[in-house]
């Protein structure tokens, strides 16, 4: 363990988690200004946190310090800290670093003794936490001739791999959905770092034929993983992880039900974090995060409380595509300034079709995981016909009594850009709800900077 450069990102996350825990523990602190501003706070902090504090977005600190956001913030930072710590220890013990696409079940990887590192989370979390975001990773790979129209979701991490800031992959697992860009960048990673790429096809059709095919693919993936790792998939271990997965799934579905209430009892700032922790479905950490969110949301719902200032009229926004990772405070600002609550988006909405994994035996578990993989956010919307994406959001808008559809178009998402008009047309036709469409990059703030995002949102919600 002489060279820990490749743990830089994991170590940063851990320190950020500790720093945020320290700050959240300060009684009565509601914003950095309470202590005299960022520069003053830096001096008060223990020295070991100061460098990390310089990296963290000040607006994010102010957001998590708000009373209504503290509980979800604690859950958030606890998970970052715990994951980074766990991953470091497991890698130190010689376990294999398995980079995987985000909707893929980690239950299987964990049961086979691997360390799952979600490729997309490496980039996403950095974008969310730090002022420098993930742009240096993006720039690094673009410098090698890979163009700006490829998805930053993978480019950020690919760049970090080239910079040696995150562990080299021992293997990669990728579903064939959602897109060519992600498929190709996983292939690039496997080639560049000479790591095996295990691919898993996702069928176009969500029917029995599709499910059986997905199941075959999962079984084939397991065979390949057994060969690569030398470990055999244990039924007992898989069951225990599936139970954690079911617990998390249950909480997510319950939170979604509670959000149908008016006023919406859930805060919006952590929605990108929800996506990140959906990659932990199947771990105790994932279950705990969603349990804590659920308890908070339920408490508010039971009391009939919302998350917008008293006296403001609630406008319920559905994000028919996605959030901007680099600006989590935006969603808090929308609540505070415009009374806009965040119902859901494609990356956090879990269709109730997902169901729970039947843990009776190996076959039922694998079938359940196959089905869940087909239903996970992004996979569900992009693996087949556009109708699934479009109809889901028409139904969501109706079920949640939404007032606005927000379509922030991630610039590199060819799927989105080929169906956004159909989606907004159908929503207008069936619900009369207006759509705000604009261009952005989920992780690269240079495309639509936070100030510009606010201007676009303000303009729309002022005239809504």
């Amino acid at each position, binding site marked *: 363990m002489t060279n820990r450069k490749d743990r830089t990102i994991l170590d940063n996350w851990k320190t950020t988690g500790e720093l945020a825990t320290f700050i959240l523990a300060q009684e009565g602190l509601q914003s950095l200004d309470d202590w005299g501003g960022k520069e003053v706070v830096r001096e008060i902090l223990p020295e070991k946190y100061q460098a990390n504090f310089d990296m963290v977005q000040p607006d994010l600190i102010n957001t998590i310090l708000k009373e209504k956001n503290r509980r979800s913030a604690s859950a958030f930072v606890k998970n970052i800290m715990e994951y980074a710590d766990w991953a470091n220890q497991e890698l130190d013990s010689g376990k294999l670093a398995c980079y995987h696409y985000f909707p893929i079940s980690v239950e299987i990887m964990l049961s086979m003794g691997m360390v799952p590192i979600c490729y997309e989370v490496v980039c996403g979390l950095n974008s969310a936490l730090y002022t420098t975001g993930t742009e240096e990773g993006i720039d690094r790979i673009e410098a090698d001739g890979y163009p700006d*129209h490829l998805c930053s979701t993978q480019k950020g991490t690919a760049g970090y791999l080239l910079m040696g800031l995150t562990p080299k992959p021992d293997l990669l697992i990728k579903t*064939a959905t959602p897109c060519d860009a992600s498929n190709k960048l996983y292939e690039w990673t*496997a080639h560049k770092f000479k790591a095996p790429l295990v*691919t898993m096809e996702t069928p176009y059709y969500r029917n029995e034929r599709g499910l059986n095919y997905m199941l075959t693919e999962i079984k084939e993936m397991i065979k390949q993983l057994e060969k690569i790792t030398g470990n055999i998939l244990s039924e007992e271990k898989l069951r225990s992880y599936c139970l954690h997965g079911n617990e998390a799934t249950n909480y997510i579905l319950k939170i979604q039900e509670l959000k149908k209430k008016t006023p919406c009892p859930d805060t919006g700032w952590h929605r990108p974090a929800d996506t990140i922790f959906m990659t932990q479905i199947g771990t105790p950490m994932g279950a705990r995060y969603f349990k804590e969110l659920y308890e908070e949301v339920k408490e508010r719902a039971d009391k009939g409380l919302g998350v917008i200032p008293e006296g403001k009229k609630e406008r319920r926004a559905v994000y028919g595509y996605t959030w901007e990772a680099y600006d989590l405070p935006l969603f808090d600002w929308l609540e505070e300034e415009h009374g806009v609550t965040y119902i859901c988006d494609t990356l956090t909405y879990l269709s109730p079709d997902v169901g729970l994994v039947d843990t009776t035996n190996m076959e039922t578990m694998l079938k359940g995981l196959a089905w869940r993989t087909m239903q996970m956010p992004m996979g569900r919307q992009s693996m087949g016909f*556009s109708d699934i994406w479009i109809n889901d959001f028409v139904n969501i808008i109706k079920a949640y009594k939404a007032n606005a559809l927000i379509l922030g178009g991630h610039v590199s998402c060819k799927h989105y*850009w*080929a169906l956004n*008009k159909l989606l907004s047309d159908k929503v207008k036709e069936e619900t009369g709800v207006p759509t705000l469409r604009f261009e952005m990059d989920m992780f690269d703030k240079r495309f639509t900077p936070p100030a510009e995002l606010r201007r676009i949102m303000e303009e729309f919600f002022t005239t809504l």
Partner: protein
Amino acid sequence: MKALEELMSLPDRRENPYLKDWKADGGRVVGFPCGYVPEEIIQAAGLFPYRMEARGTKETGLADIYLSRFNCTFARCLLQTALAGEYDFLDGFCLLNGCDQIRRLYEIWEKHLTTDYLFMVTVPHAINDSGFAWYREEISNFKEQLAHKFGVRCSEQDLRQAIRLYNESRSLIEELYELRKAEEIPISGSEVTSILLSAGIMPRERFNQLLKEALDEIRRKPKITDYKARVMVGGSALDNPQLIEIIEGLGGMVVTDSLCFGSRHFLNPIEEEGDPLEAIAKRYYYHNPCPRMMGEFENRLRFTEEMARGANVDGIILQKIVFCDGHAVESPMLAEELEPQNIPVMVLEREHMISDVGRIKTRIEAFMERIARR
């Protein structure tokens, strides 16, 4: 009109007489935009398999209502062509999940165009046994749907005949590629591109007949010897000889390719023995893969290298349409591997409609200076 001239001029003619006659005789046409659609099945059903392209489309105003500036201009031009009514002659349209942008045309087409029948054939992204079984079932379903919707027969015998017909094309086209391997070349790359485009837009029996005659004409043609460098072209869908003309106008001679409108589509025959559907599935699923296939980079690299070495090229131009993600990653990867093997590579970004000719010429001129042998 001589056969060669007929084949070379057809793609640029305003009216396609073969299509006109076919329709006048009550024939029906099924279009497809990608090389993973097995034409033999359409042919066996007595329909006209029409390889769709969007050559000559100058703007995308209609298409951009549904697509955007972040989608590739091949998909946008194809949709533009259709929305402008130029594909109104289609009775059926077979799409597939070849790439994200092409597959998303399905729903737009369904809602905003009037083609009688739409089909979707899905191709797995990884080459393995379960993927093959899936694809085989997909094309079997496609065959059944064609027969059912058009009320036609598509028997094993019909499939065998279609395979023989298309294999004949493949063999003739292989001859064409062989002729270009010579130091003194009887036909330019842009002329070959036009011939191959003709294959997709005329009845195949007639194409084979004309190509046979054209090959004799080509052999008798004066040889081209005054080129500066032998060039291979690869990359995104190229349905237009214009780019090849630019390369050849600057002294390059395009002698081979790894294009889906070229060698990747027309080489590799289908086995004529055994179950014909199985044989068709094998050919289309396992043939030199498109970058959309995952985990196949080594095979594509090998294929590119073999084609380059086989035609003794001095350099490769990998042209990619902006927003084509498959080739955007593949091209620099190939360049990185081929350059150390003394195969110079230029990665050239372009739009489907080649408009910024000045920039393209400057880049190609610079590449020519690098690779010129004389």
